[in-house]
């Protein structure tokens, strides 16, 4: 196990040096995708499947596709040389120096004697989670139970990021006059590109199973690795793949914004229902229903999933529409 982690870490360093000394932006994008796939394997070996799923969907799929989309809109960007070698080399040397100086502290990151693991809240979580929340998964319990304020803030941040992106890139949606901001991709109808036809047929086979896996991750968020963020980012990636393959998709971006806002409102509604039944904000234990904690955590994970999926699809579609203006 340690040998695998060492090999993957040295692969990471090699790919990072390759990124630094690559000749064009296209090469940088592809190498960054390789970097994030290596990171996925590393997270899996470190027993963090949640982070691995998120990294696979966001780092390897979304960021690569969005950067390639921007690059194909601006063809000069992909062939331009991007290497000021001297400053890069100085930066690399200083980073290596910093890591060498403090490697003794980060060496045994997983040691149980670290002060992070000895804090009393961790003991509280590990010993009391089952009877407080009624669910066996620690991450879902901490994320949607003990720290639900943080999660509310995170979903708000994602929402604000999507809305501000759409306001910067494509402000027509904010103007209110045009609800017809549809993304009719080119070649609608029967004349599908011969080059893409095989890909679209295969995607028609693959995509339902991918969506099935997303639903599985979403629903089993409380009992196994997974949950709202992971399922949402996977659904967003599936939508992106679908809109690349099939040329006939048309999604109104307004509906995506509405679903994102609605999911955050659903989250807040669960919080407020705690107040209504006489508890604190986001205290779901007081709701007079059987398994109220479990139910509320399930709804909150669902809200996070819808939020993340719609915002990711929104980001891709926003960059995709640049050429239309």
């Amino acid at each position, binding site marked *: 196990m340690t040998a695998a982690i060492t090999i993957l870490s040295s692969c990471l360093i090699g790919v990072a040096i390759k990124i630094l000394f690559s000749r064009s932006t296209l090469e940088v994008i592809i190498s960054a995708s390789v970097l994030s796939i290596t990171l996925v394997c590393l997270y899996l070996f470190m027993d963090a499947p949640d982070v691995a799923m998120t990294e696979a969907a966001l780092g390897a799929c979304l960021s690569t596709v969005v950067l390639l989309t921007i690059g194909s809109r601006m063809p000069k960007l992909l062939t331009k040389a991007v290497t000021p070698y001297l400053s890069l080399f100085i930066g690399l040397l200083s980073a290596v120096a910093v890591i060498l100086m403090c490697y003794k502290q980060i060496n045994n990151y997983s040691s149980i004697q670290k002060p992070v693991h000895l804090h009393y809240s961790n003991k509280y979580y590990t010993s009391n989670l089952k009877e407080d929340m009624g669910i066996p998964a620690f991450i879902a319990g901490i994320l949607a139970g003990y720290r639900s304020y943080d999660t509310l803030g995170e979903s708000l941040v994602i929402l604000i990021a999507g809305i501000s992106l759409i306001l910067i890139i494509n402000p027509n949606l904010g103007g209110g006059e045009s609800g017809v901001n549809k993304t009719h991709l080119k070649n609608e109808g029967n004349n599908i590109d011969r080059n893409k036809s*095989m*890909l679209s047929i295969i995607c028609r086979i693959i995509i339902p199973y991918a969506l099935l896996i997303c639903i599985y991750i979403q629903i089993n968020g409380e009992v196994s690795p997974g949950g709202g963020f992971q399922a949402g980012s996977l659904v967003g990636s599936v939508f992106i793949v679908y809109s690349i393959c099939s040329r006939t998709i048309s999604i109104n971006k307004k509906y995506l914004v509405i679903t994102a806002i609605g999911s955050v409102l659903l989250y807040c509604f669960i919080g407020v229902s705690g107040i209504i039944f006489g508890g604190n904000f986001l205290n779901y234990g007081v709701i007079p229903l059987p398994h109220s904690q479990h139910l509320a955590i399930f709804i909150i994970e669902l809200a996070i999933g819808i939020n993340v999926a719609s915002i990711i699809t929104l980001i891709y579609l926003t960059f995709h529409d640049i050429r239309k203006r």
Partner: protein
Amino acid sequence: MLGLFRFPDLFTKLHAGSLLESFALPLCIIGTSLMQKTLCAALKNILVVVILLILNPIIANILSKSARK
């Protein structure tokens, strides 16, 4: 694997790479599936093989077609 580094141009390199990932890698994964303790884990490995066999030839096809233009 050697062909990826030794072959001269993109198409021969693509030939070597796609051979690697649609023939050698599924054989390796079938081998690991025989080593698994439970049937469920072995079936998961077989599922990975099926996905690889579906996706990899398609990817090689698309890469070569887009390189020919």
